[in-house]
């Protein structure tokens, strides 16, 4: 069954180095729709990234920087990117070598189509 996000996620997962992408509820960290390669623990990524994004959101607001847009966490074994709109967060899991500039642009563009 297709959701309003299926097309967006299908386009994002095709980028080199991207191993998973999903739309997650910002407040509960539950997956709304996803496209994942085998081996990616979608539920854990969704819950933890939503939590991290919320934390950054709160800290940023409290520090007077306003709401968070694009968020990226770089780790030894890969990276997680997130961008939110309307209580939903678009999350991407990727390898360390991915072209994050393109991913960021695609994510911000994709957010505009979020209902």
């Amino acid at each position: 069954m297709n959701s309003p996000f299926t097309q967006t996620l299908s386009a994002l997962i095709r980028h080199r180095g991207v191993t998973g992408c999903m739309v997650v509820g910002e407040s509960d960290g539950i997956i709304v729709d996803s496209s994942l390669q085998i081996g990616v623990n979608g539920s854990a990524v969704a819950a933890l990234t939503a939590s991290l994004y919320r934390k950054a959101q709160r800290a940023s607001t409290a520090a007077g920087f306003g709401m968070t847009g694009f968020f990226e966490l770089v780790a030894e074994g890969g990276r997680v990117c997130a961008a939110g709109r309307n209580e939903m967060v678009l999350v991407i899991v990727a390898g360390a070598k991915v072209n994050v500039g393109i991913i960021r642009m695609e994510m911000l563009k994709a957010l505009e189509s979020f209902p």
Partner: protein
Amino acid sequence: MVTDDIRALSEALAADPSSTVFLQLGEALRRQGQVELAYRVATRGLERHSQRFEVHDLVARIAVDRGDFARARTEWETVLLLAPGHSGAQKGLGFLCFQQGELAAASRYLGAALEASPGDQSLSAALDTVRAAIADEQRAPWERPTAALPATVGALESPARPFAAQPADARTLFAEVLGDAPQAALLIDADGYVMAGDYVTADGHDLGADLGAQLSGVSDEASRAMRHLGLGKWKQIVFESEAASVAMAPCGEGVLLVAAPRTVPLGFVRRLLERSLDRARRWLESGT
């Protein structure tokens, strides 16, 4: 500490208001950036447990996050009365005295704290800075390093600034990396205290302590996420908000963060972070 944990702690406290679970709850709320709520929880706990030094220590740390340095000082002094030699209180008082220009007292407190925790890099770096400041004070004005002058002049021009800037290089540590652009870098220790750098607003307020307290919690959350996701240690966090781009990375036992206006390209902010990291590591390792 996650929201679920906070909820569980709140429920435990509600079930037994006389318990000391408020200590964990207050700390969790503080780390999550809910400073006012943490303050209410801690001061309410203080009413019931005024003889426990841990409670005074918690109130002091929250008071620092709120910018209430007088209260923080009173509370840490109480901690030392109740638990002589408490290294956390000595460390906190050392930083407060340093920021308020009481260099001899700062050196005494930080020295005592370092004796109790000899492996604490942030303490040895802070003590080096204080000693350098004392040495500077003892020199004639024309012999003092000129690098500290811009911060001192800025402080004199801005009466709203909470402390007079010290003739040491901790606040101006990143000046060379950042240049004159409206960018800021802060080195924050594991407890959320600013070790070096500053974040001065256009009206002259130094919001470094606020910013450090708010954003250091993000790194705790990142470490927790990394443990579960199996992606290894986190190396960098970058996020864009309405007003600023922020980049942060682990540094020593704490975190380094760089903030720049949104007009600054994100790639440049990351480059600033890397250069600031090099600077901070050099300072932590050699004190120069």
